[in-house]
């Protein structure tokens, strides 16, 4: 049976009066590649930010490997609205910080590349290994952790090798071509040893050729690192090609979900993307 690795329950995220995500529930099973699509401003990146602990949701809960990692018990005026809906399901507030969530083996990339720009590609990957280091600052300073340090460096090099970045390991990150920066960001995320990888528009700004290569690349890293992938993407050919299942968001609401064929033929989705023809016209 498929074990679900990530589960969002009734997630609502409000910023003041704006409802960015409205009652979103979704599941990602082990080893799947799931895409989250929707028009601009549908709340996809906000969903990522809720999962990774950047925002505390207004209501709802996130489970990772059946363990509650984020939940919110609504307070103040929100309580009136949500307490009834929840039936007392979420009675505590759990808010883990992004670094704690990364330690649970959830890694992410960013929509607008966020590399450590003035450091080398190698250092970028090496930094991601830091959180697994067991040495305290004093022993690290006095080089007492040299074995661990050597292992970290070897693993980082190995990762750069696998992702085809070994030739540019000493280049400054911001001087790399765009496609390689995207790859480096994924390499850096993989260095945190994730089980679940969240990719925020990995193909943004790539040409059709690079996008095509990305498909096999994502398949490759999934099997090599035994990953589950949740991806936000706008390139429909990539999404349809690669996804096991797709969730479609529009104005924060889940409007459809299913395998790629179902989504392709779903009238609501087509309407959301192309707009509903106005009957009153003529």
């Amino acid at each position, binding site marked *: 049976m498929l074990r679900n690795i990530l589960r969002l329950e009734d997630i609502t995220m409000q910023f003041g009066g704006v409802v960015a995500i409205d009652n979103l529930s979704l599941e990602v099973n082990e080893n799947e590649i799931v895409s989250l699509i929707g028009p601009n401003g549908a709340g996809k990146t906000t969903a990522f930010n809720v999962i*990774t602990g*950047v925002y505390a949701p207004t209501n709802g809960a996130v489970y990772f490997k059946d363990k509650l990692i984020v939940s919110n018990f609504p307070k103040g005026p929100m309580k009136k609205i949500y307490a009834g809906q929840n039936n007392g399901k979420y009675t505590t507030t759990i808010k883990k*910080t*992004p*670094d704690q969530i*990364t*330690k649970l083996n959830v*890694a*992410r990339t*960013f929509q607008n590349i*966020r*590399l*450590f*720009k*003035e*450091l080398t590609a190698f*250092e970028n990957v*090496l*930094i*991601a*290994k*830091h*959180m697994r*280091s067991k*040495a305290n*600052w004093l022993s*690290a*300073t*006095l*080089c007492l*952790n040299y074995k661990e*340090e050597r292992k*970290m460096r070897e693993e980082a090099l190995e990762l750069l090798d696998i992702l085809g970045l070994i030739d540019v390991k000493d280049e400054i990150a911001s001087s790399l071509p765009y496609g390689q920066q995207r790859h480096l960001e994924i390499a*850096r995320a993989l260095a*945190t040893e994730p089980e679940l990888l969240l990719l925020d528009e990995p193909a943004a700004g790539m040409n059709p050729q690079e996008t095509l290569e990305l498909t096999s690349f994502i398949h490759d890293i999934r099997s090599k690192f035994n990953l589950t992938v949740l991806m936000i993407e706008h390139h429909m050919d990539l999404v349809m090609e690669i996804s096991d299942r797709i969730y479609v968001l529009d104005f924060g609401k889940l409007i459809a979900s299913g395998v790629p064929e179902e989504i392709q033929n779903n009238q609501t989705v087509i309407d959301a993307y192309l707009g509903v023809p106005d009957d009153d016209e003529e």
Partner: protein
Amino acid sequence: MKTSKNLIYSLILAVVTLALLFFLEVNKAKYGMAYTVLTKGIILAVVAVSMNLVTGFTGLFSLGQAGFMAIGAYVTAIFLIPTNSIEEVYYMSGVSPAILTFKTWLESTPLWFQSLLPYIALTAGGLVAALFAALIGIPVLRLKSDYLAIATLGFSEIMRAIISSPQMDTITNGSYGLKKIQGFSSLIQVFLIAAVCITFMILLIRSTYGRAFKAIREDEIAAEAMGINLFKHKSLSFIIGSFFAAVSGGMLAMFMRSIDAKTFTVSLTYDILLIVVVGGIGSITGSILSSLLVTASKEWWLRFFDSPLYIGSFQVPLFKTGFRMVIFSVVLLLIVLFYQRGLMGRNEFSWDGLAKAFNKLKSKSSNKGGSKIA
């Protein structure tokens, strides 16, 4: 091959430096100015590197250096004033009984302990400052950039005000300051302490924690997504930086032999900031180099601008006391204009880098007359 060659160069440099220090130590009377400038320069190098650790490598714009230096200086001074002259130092308002008991206890410790006293005093000063840094770090490190700078600047001023307040008279001797502090035994001792401090910070920056600091400097959000606990690492950097600022403050007290609260005004922090900026924010060797250069030009090389200059019987105008600082400011302006990222930028000194710069200079001068190819 290449690394062993560089190692030999570095060893030669170390030996030459040591020989120079020995020479200066022996001929102290003749080269008094060089002696003073080198001592003060290397002491300021320690605090400049510590500020670079916090500001240049972790990206925390902290201006609290003078405050931490003051803590270090006063703790060191209390340790190192000879017990028999303590009453004399506190002649105005008397000594606090706690200090008296402490000093008599120090007197009763074994001799080997007393010979290590300068090192113990400096470490104690550093630890007290580190404790203060940990406490004020809790609220202050939540602030970003300019706000952090203002908050730490405020802390530094509060520290100075507390030290000179009448309520602290029996401990800090208020505005009279502390005198008769035991000095360094030799120039080599100063350099040895500074070398240990700076080496420690270099090793920290090159360790996995140093890389985490740089990650925070580059991008906080990405650093957090890489599992780096922002607050933990920021306070670690802040505490260690404050520790070494205080050690440097203690060394300054030992160098000057007498201190008062006025030594540690905001302008001291600005002097250090200036050294860091001139050397290059994010370059340790840059900070060391620039603290020696800045100290030397401020106290020594530009001195002749201060005394009247005669060409024949004509007295050149402007050459009078204070003109040196005008020249100094102009030099600074030029440096900031032409080396926007400081003398070293974010690079570190290396023999290969030196050779490269030298070759570039050589080819430039040989190409001057002829046509330039490529």
